[in-house]
């Protein structure tokens, strides 16, 4: 009996410390979301301008005159290059499972895959996808410079004409409660149907040259946006997962405490009975 009591006591302690850790992780995640949100807000004017200039050039020219490999489809090749943005760490609820479901339904074994985050790497390799490169993120907010090497791969494969399009699978951060796995096309560049072209611009040296040198910037701002979305989603998912964990741990603590008190009471009763009966065990 006594041994059992000790064990229950130990379990109560464990449950309590789990609750504490979960609470702390929840709070850390909350502050990380804020960081990601301010980073997005800070970069917004820049990214809006880049998008505007690209759409402006697209609106004033057709595909043929631009003669860019990033505009219009490359029909000869079927293979895609897919970026999978996941996390480095687990403990974020159904987020990873949702991303992986998307990967299974939309990526074929022939496609090239670039994984970002350890979890995507492990998953894609296990399922036999053609992983060409994998980047790790760590747990801190990704820096803008971090994405240059990630995107350089696009240019390399485009130059050798091995791929026809570039897609990105990431988690869209709708709000703190809702995050959705998404697949978006990075290249070829999509024309924005809502774009209103007003006024003529002079292009120097020419619109084609401006576009060609602007394209890397364009990919960067879009990719950065996705990376930030993925980061914020990860933290939000972790936040709710940890808040659930905290609740569950508290529940377990409560039920264990009741069990502990009951068996302690039973033990005392037995001892009193023994005394009253004058028996010695």
């Amino acid at each position, binding site marked *: 009996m006594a041994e059992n009591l000790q064990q229950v006591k130990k379990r109560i302690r464990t449950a309590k410390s789990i609750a504490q850790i979960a609470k702390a992780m929840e709070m850390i995640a909350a502050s990380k979301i804020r960081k990601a949100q301010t980073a997005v807000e800070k970069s917004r004017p820049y990214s809006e301008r880049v998008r505007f200039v690209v759409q402006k050039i697209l609106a004033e020219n057709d595909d043929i005159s631009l003669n860019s490999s990033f505009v219009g489809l490359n029909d000869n090749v079927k293979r895609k290059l897919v970026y999978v943005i996941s996390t480095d760490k687990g403990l974020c609820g159904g987020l990873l499972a949702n991303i992986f479901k998307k990967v299974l339904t939309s990526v074929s074994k022939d496609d090239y895959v670039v994984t970002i985050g350890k979890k995507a790497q492990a998953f894609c390799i*296990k399922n036999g996808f053609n992983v060409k490169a994998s980047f790790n993120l760590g747990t801190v907010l990704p820096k803008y410079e971090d994405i240059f090497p990630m995107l350089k791969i696009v240019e390399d494969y485009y130059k050798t004409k091995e791929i026809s399009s570039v897609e990105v699978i990431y988690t869209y951060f709708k709000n703190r409660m809702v995050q959705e796995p998404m697949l978006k096309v990075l290249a070829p560049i999509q024309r924005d149907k809502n774009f209103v072209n007003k006024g003529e611009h002079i292009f120097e040296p020419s619109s084609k040259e401006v576009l060609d040198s602007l394209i890397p910037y364009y990919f960067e701002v879009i990719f950065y946006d996705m990376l930030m979305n993925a980061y914020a989603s990860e933290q939000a998912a972790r936040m709710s997962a940890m808040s659930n964990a905290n609740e569950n741990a508290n529940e377990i603590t409560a039920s264990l405490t009741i069990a502990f008190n009951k068996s302690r009471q039973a033990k005392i009763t037995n001892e009193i009975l023994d005394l009253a009966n004058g028996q010695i065990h």
Partner: protein
Amino acid sequence: MGNTYKLDILSPEGNVFSGEVSFATFPTMAGDITVLSGHTAIITKLSVGEVVIDINGEKKFITIAGGFLEFSDNVASVIADFAIRSEEIDDKKIEEAKKHAREQMAKKDKLSSAVMEHDLQKAILELKFFENIKSKNKRYKA
């Protein structure tokens, strides 16, 4: 007043400069151009160099590593590039990432699952224990 225009120098990390200027000089591929208020709409590529901003005779200098200038309706925005894009560093990182992927692919079959299984069993045992306690408590309540 009246002959000033709004200039924003934008970067991914936030706005570097934002305000009304009398005129400003930008380094383009074909040499410096000075943009005064009422300039015609223009989009041009910028090269490495200094943007010289003049606010009522007061001069300000901002060095950029390249970028783009867009001017229309008396609003100028510079998509500024401050990051030094070093091909070498990037290439090194890509090589690392590719190597990493290859290594992991090769390792795939060798992964031992014994440790994981042990942990899993332990977790299941713990769970069962908690379930027991929970159902016992329910019985007490009933």
